[in-house]
């Protein structure tokens, strides 16, 4: 009999669920949205349908990410740093440094044998996060998914001098009306984010291999800009968004197995798969 485990990663922008048995059984990525506190159960239901499993079939569930306390049915909460390291190590075992560019934060994590050695994080300022790119894409009228490819056609990336996202947005629209080309502006936006992220991650002693995860990894223009700033190639996992949820599911499996080995049963959450309630 196979035991199944789940990892739920509630990010600021996207919610990810991975169901893990012997290998990944289901993988769901959906927008977190403003109602994220009610969302976890819906995404979990979808994942269970994809895996052809019932909620009762899951032996242990770990929640992670920014919204991890809002997953009442999770048996345990673990920080996204730990889960990221665990998930990434299972996908790309040679990686020692992870750069994660999420919707509302960016991080650098040093890994050894799937464990966190040290980390740095920016969640105080939107510059250097996915939100910066999202806002610029919006004000330039370029679909977020097209930003990467568009920037690769730039001949000279535009110089964006403002750090703050709010000020940079003005600067970018001014430059656009001043005649700067879209590809150059988009490339400049990626350089700005890459500069911020690189200066954050360089606080760690960067060792190869380096991998990039999070939504930022899906933007080829940003990845190229980051490689330039870091001065080394970066690896991209096949699905860079699910690293944290995968790590949470693997960790769930490890915890469960540790208990069973000792002839014990881990304590489970008493909440079923229902909406989290607030302001009660």
């Amino acid at each position, binding site marked *: 009999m196979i035991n199944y485990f789940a990892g739920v990663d509630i990010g600021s922008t996207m919610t990810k669920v991975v169901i893990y048995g012997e290998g990944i059984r289901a993988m769901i990525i959906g927008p977190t949205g403003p109602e994220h506190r009610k969302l976890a159960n819906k995404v979990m239901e979808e994942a269970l349908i994809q895996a052809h499993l019932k909620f009762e079939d899951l032996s242990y569930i770990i929640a992670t990410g920014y919204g991890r306390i809002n997953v009442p049915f999770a048996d345990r909460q673990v920080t996204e740093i730990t889960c990221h390291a665990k998930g990434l190590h299972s996908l790309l075992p040679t990686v020692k440094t992870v750069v994660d560019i999420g919707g509302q934060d960016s991080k650098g994590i040093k890994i050894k044998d799937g464990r966190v050695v040290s980390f740095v994080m920016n969640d105080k300022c*939107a510059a250097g996060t996915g939100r910066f790119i999202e806002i610029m894409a919006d004000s330039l009228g370029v679909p977020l998914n097209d930003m990467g490819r568009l920037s690769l056609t730039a001949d000279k990336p535009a110089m964006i001098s403002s750090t703050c996202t709010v000020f940079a947005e003005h600067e970018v629209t001014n430059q656009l009306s001043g005649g700067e080309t879209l590809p150059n502006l988009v490339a400049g936006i990626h350089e700005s984010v890459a500069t911020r992220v690189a200066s954050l991650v360089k606080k760690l002693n960067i060792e190869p291999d380096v991998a990039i995860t999070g939504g930022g990894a899906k933007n080829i223009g940003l990845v190229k800009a980051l490689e330039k700033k870091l001065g080394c190639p970066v690896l991209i996992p096949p699905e860079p968004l699910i690293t944290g949820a995968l790590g949470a599911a693997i960790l769930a499996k490890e915890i469960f197995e540790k208990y069973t080995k000792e002839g014990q049963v881990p304590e489970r959450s008493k909440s079923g798969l229902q909406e989290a309630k607030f302001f009660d």
Partner: protein
Amino acid sequence: MAFFLGIDVGSGYTKAVVCEDTSLRSYSIIPSGGDYRKAALESSENALKKINISMSDISNTIATGYGAAIVDFARQTLSDISCHAIGINYLFPSVRTVIDIGAQYSRAIHLDSEGRIVNFIMNEKCAGGSGKFLQVTARILQMDIKDLGRLSLTSEKPVEFTTACAVFAESEAVSRISEGALPADIVAGIHKAMSSKIIVLATRVGLVPDYAVTGGGAKDIGLVRAIEKELKTNTFVAQEPQITAALGAAIFASSR
């Protein structure tokens, strides 16, 4: 008797002040828009027209602010920090710490008992404590920015924001609204987040009473009250706090 003109070309608004000797006679505040020279000219003409005089009646003109260099009809430019100091010392001679909340920048200026600048600090990297934050808030609540202050004062339970970043606060506010938080509590929470950020800035120049709040941000009574709460004391706010630097420029013009 002679007339003097002070023009403050800010990133958001352009302010012109006309003084007769050292008495404030008229002023005008208009959005700076994209053409700073035009804004400077227009606001000056507005202020002059109000007291039926023309540019030829002006004995001296001083320009200040973000776009001061472009005001080619000014005899001289002076930094906005200096103009602020002169303006505030003219209005409230006892003030030693000025907190200026502009459209894009916030500043703190420490003055000595003679009104001379001891130290100042400016935040130009982050919109966190600037008027921009108020604009963002007004937009998501679909309110006029002028109404934020009074609404804030009706709040009984300000929302606790976990961030001082204008961008993150926007998404946090949207989340809280969808969970049923009241607009008044959102605005009060934003004012609290802004004032903490501003106080951090002011602490770095030394918190010496008396205090004045200037700039467009001083027109938001909710923000001023939040700052006063952090300072645990009252602050001076001029009847028209947005013209402090332009007034300082006009007073300086009269001294040349």
